[in-house]
């Protein structure tokens, strides 16, 4: 089988699916087509497909442990005028999500301790509805509170392949003094995220 054929096959396979396709599934397909004797390097083929789409309106990205075609991020403003987009998550929800992401698995009390305020039902509902957090068992303390963690949908939504793709805590810290003194102005989001300008969550 020619390299070209492999690329086309893998391209078609991943393109057909709306969900990320696991590398193992790609390897299986290639192996089935090639026979057992030939060695299969699914990742190499995927990277070749990725290269093929570099700079195009549609890109191949590795997210949530699989490969998925997505529209290029820079086209968002134009596309969202025609495509339906969900409401953005309010700051409280984003912060709660960040706490769960960095402290998982953690209980509601732990989340509240970090933010210093109680966690509103609305915020919890929002996060559960979007499927970004999921229960991960219970903590073996009196009351056995639910432990929360992030879901695969969380990785997919934020374009992460693994949880370890999140910035390390130290990286976040390093940015801080800078953020206070000279925090990258010019970043659009930065300005509107300033604590002073923030609108409260319902």
């Amino acid at each position: 089988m020619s390299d070209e054929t492999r690329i086309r096959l893998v391209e078609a396979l991943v393109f057909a699916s709306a969900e990320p396709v696991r590398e193992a599934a790609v390897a299986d397909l290639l192996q089935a087509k090639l026979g057992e004797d030939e060695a299969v390097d699914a990742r190499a083929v995927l990277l070749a497909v990725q290269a093929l789409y570099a700079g195009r309106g549609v890109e191949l990205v590795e997210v949530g442990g699989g490969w998925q075609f997505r529209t290029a991020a820079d086209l968002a403003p134009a596309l969202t005028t025609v495509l339906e987009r969900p409401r953005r998550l309010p700051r409280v929800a984003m912060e709660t999500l960040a706490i769960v992401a960095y402290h998982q698995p953690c209980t509601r009390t732990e989340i509240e301790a970090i933010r210093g305020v109680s966690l509103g039902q609305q915020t919890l509902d929002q996060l559960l509805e979007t499927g970004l957090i999921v229960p991960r068992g219970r903590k073996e303390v009196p009351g056995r509170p639910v432990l929360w963690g992030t879901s695969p949908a969380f990785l997919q939504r934020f374009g992460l392949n693994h949880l370890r793709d999140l910035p390390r805590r130290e990286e976040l810290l390093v940015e801080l003094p800078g953020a206070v003194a000279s925090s990258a102005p010019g970043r659009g989001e930065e300005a509107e995220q300033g604590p002073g300008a923030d609108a409260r969550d319902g």
Partner: protein
Amino acid sequence: MVKAEPASDAGPGAASAPVSAAPMLQLDGFEGPLDLLLDLARAQKVDLARISILTLVEQYLAVVRSAPVGLELAADWLVMAAWLAWLKSRLLLPDDPAAAEEGEIAAEALQERLLELSRIGEAARWLDRQPQLGRDVFPRGAAEQLREIDRSGLSLDMGQLLAAYMAACRRTARRGVYRPRPPSFWTVQDALERLRRLVGDVASDWCTLEQFLPSPAETPSNPHGDPGWPRRAALAGTLIAGLEMAKSGAIELRQEEAFGPVMLRVSESAPEAEAA
């Protein structure tokens, strides 16, 4: 709820917002006391790890004291204020070394909490900056189902085969059983025929009705229920036939007492009536 102007000046980007502007803040613009503390700490424009806790406490207490909402402040704001006032007293007036140390530990804990909250805020902003699926980037809208269902195969197993056979056999077997003939008894019609045939030969004088009953061999048999039924049915049939003939005047009927034997004889004027 958006805060008053001085508050937005206090944001991280603001160059020189005087801390004195803080009292103008509407506290419920903040997500709790920690949020306000973090904001105040940022306004000091030093490394969060090196902020002056004392200054911070002063600022917080000043804000809370002058807050427009006054005593209507939520409990957590007041608890934080009380705790900070205590912390300030420990830091300012260490009456003994143990208390001083206690104060420093508490100050460090506060600092660490502010750092963590700050990190979380940063992480949240980082997440929000990522191109988000469904918000900034989109997956394939019309996914293709590359799947075909082949229903040409047959699923067969012995269990099915045997169950089917048993079901078929049981059905017909049951039908043989469940279809009993309706019991046929000696009918009035039968009795009428028999009476007409016999009455002229026998009954010129009174005889009992029983004499005209069919023999057991002539009575239809009834496999179900009481073996006496056919006999009683024949008697009833014969009585009705007798009444019928008496009505037309062919015979006369007589019964001496209730439940006594019914007697029968050919009527004196029978022939004409019978002919009619």
